[in-house]
């Protein structure tokens, strides 16, 4: 193992002297994702709040047909605007979030006590406008019920007659679990951090070393290949896990500036979180480092290796996408699947749910076994004669 340590120390030392690698591992990798994430969340939350508090601008067609309704809307801080010429188009072009149309026969139907129609013109595919549409619909329904109740009272009936069922919602989500639906992307950022952190070294220690023609002299030393490979993988893994750790710390730090308290949420980023996350990320970092090295070993040049390894980056997206599109109930077998188990465990930890020790152990063990298999495969490639020869 002594030679593996020599290789490890040399790779760490050499790569620490490479400014680009250091910036990738210590700055870009860990900070980029959390920063983008914080910006994203901040904009999202702030905008939602602004929308709820601000007056709702509402172009109305035929406002003169229902002056009482318009007055009621005004009292609910709706800013009545003159109608655009082509309301359908205005909505499609996003000039207006929503337009209200009151037909001419509204007043006649209203006076006769028949249902009077109003039209909400909106574009359901514009997610941005959805809150405005929801708000308007709520206001109209409220006005509808109030008027209906008044009419019943005028006829001597109790308004309760029209409400055979009363729905009361009891939302079981906690502050944490509400926060984590926003934060379900976070594990991917940590996994990505591990990926980016190890990438430069995985390529440099195989494809790079071959391209610089230093692999053949290295193999001429009386050191078994597995020791050389272990040293290189060790260095790659250490860089990867450093990126993950810094990424978590960066997130814990910037998490303070998130307006989570505004929406009544709090995130469980404490010491236990950091410890558990690093624990489950350790074997994954080794697995990713090994896979990156394996892929880079097949490439003929540094550039080719970069292309292949970048493509490999899409693999960790798969469980993230699957879990966000199909919100599975967590089943115990999922803790045995590398990548997916890390995803689930980190998400649960963030939500403040507890993760059984057996799940942590299963995740660590299964990812570790996968890493060992990948190691065996890479070692096989390392023993091939073609590996060292650059020309």
């Amino acid at each position: 193992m002594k030679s593996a340590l020599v290789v490890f120390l040399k790779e760490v030392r050499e790569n620490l002297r490479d400014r680009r690698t250091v910036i990738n591992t210590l700055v870009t990798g860990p900070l980029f994702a959390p920063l983008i994430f914080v910006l994203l969340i901040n904009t999202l939350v702030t905008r939602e709040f602004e929308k709820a508090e601000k007056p709702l601008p509402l172009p109305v067609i035929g406002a003169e047909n229902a002056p009482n309704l318009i007055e009621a809307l005004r009292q609910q801080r709706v800013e009545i605007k003159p109608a655009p010429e082509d309301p359908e188009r205005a909505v499609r072009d996003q000039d207006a979030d929503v337009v209200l149309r009151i037909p001419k026969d509204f007043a006649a139907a209203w006076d006769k006590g028949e249902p009077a129609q109003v039209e909400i013109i909106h574009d359901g595919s514009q997610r941005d406008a959805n809150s405005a549409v929801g708000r308007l619909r709520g206001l109209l329904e409220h006005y509808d019920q109030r008027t209906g109740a008044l009419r019943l009272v005028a006829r001597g009936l109790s308004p309760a007659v029209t409400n055979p069922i009363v729905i009361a919602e009891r939302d079981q989500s906690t502050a944490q679990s509400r926060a984590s639906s926003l934060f379900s992307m976070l594990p991917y950022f940590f996994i990505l951090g591990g990926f980016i952190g190890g990438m430069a070294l995985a390529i440099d220690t195989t494809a790079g070393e071959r391209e610089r023609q230093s692999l053949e002299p290295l193999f001429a030393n009386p050191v078994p290949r597995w020791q050389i490979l272990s040293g290189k993988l060790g260095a790659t893994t250490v860089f990867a896990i450093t990126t993950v750790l810094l990424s978590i710390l960066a997130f814990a730090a910037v998490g303070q500036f998130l307006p989570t308290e505004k929406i009544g949420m709090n995130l469980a980023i404490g010491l236990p979180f950091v410890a558990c996350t690093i624990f489950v990320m350790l074997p994954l970092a080794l697995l990713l480092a090994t896979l990156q090295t394996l892929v880079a070993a097949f490439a003929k040049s540094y550039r080719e290796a970069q292309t292949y390894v970048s493509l490999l980056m899409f693999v960790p997206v798969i469980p993230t996408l699957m879990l966000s599109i199909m919100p599975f109930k967590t089943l115990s077998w999922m803790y045995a699947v590398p990548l997916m188990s890390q995803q689930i465990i980190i998400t649960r930890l963030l939500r403040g749910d507890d993760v059984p020790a057996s799940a942590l152990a299963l995740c660590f063990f299964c990812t570790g076994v996968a890493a060992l298999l990948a190691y065996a495969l890479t070692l096989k490639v390392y023993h091939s004669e073609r590996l060292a020869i650059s020309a």
Partner: protein
Amino acid sequence: MIEVRDLHKAFGKVIAVDGATFAARDGEITGLLGPNGAGKTTTLRCLYTLMQPDRGQVLVDGIDAAADPIAVRRSLGVLPDARGLYKRLSARENIAYFGRLQGIDEATIRQRTDTAIAALEMGDFANRHAEGYSQGQRVKTAIARALIHDPRNVILDEPTNGLDVMATRAMREFLKRLKREGRCVLFSSHIMQEVAALCDRIVVIAKGKVVADDAPEVLRAQTGEANLEDAFVKLIGTEEGLAA
């Protein structure tokens, strides 16, 4: 002492080495001479166990390379065709890295590095990062690191490739010095003069086969040519790939 017995190596249908047999003795410089593509590099790669021969045997100081490749590599100093350095390490650090991989203690590494730096006149660049080294500086560093474990046997693949006149002369002197120290020196070359000027023994290789294996003067007598270059052409039966 390096012995090669009936060595065969093919890459798919291309036969690189086709039954080569020769020996390089201690205290002698042996030249592996042949045109480009004759199988010199492949033969040497089999010697330092980077490649496994399809058939045949390689013995270094009596150790079978197939049975104990690590021991063989330990008794060999190798300057391969690929002589890349680590650019973000200095020459001194490059040398120390290989010393540690050879399992040598730090004090010995330091002392031998100093000796090599003096012998190869590397003083003015030894502490600078290898980025931007000249070709000659790179070769000197590669040789110093290949010999850090003081091996009995030295293998060099085209050692003067890409060197200017002064550096080539220095390299020749260095090889002679290795010989005086009693080492077994085996180097490949496609350059006539070089082999003629240095070697105690010449192994001429063409199309993967050894076509001659003797002292330069014997080869001249054998072919009836007074000039070694003419003898060489006669031996390989073609003028292809012959450099002045």
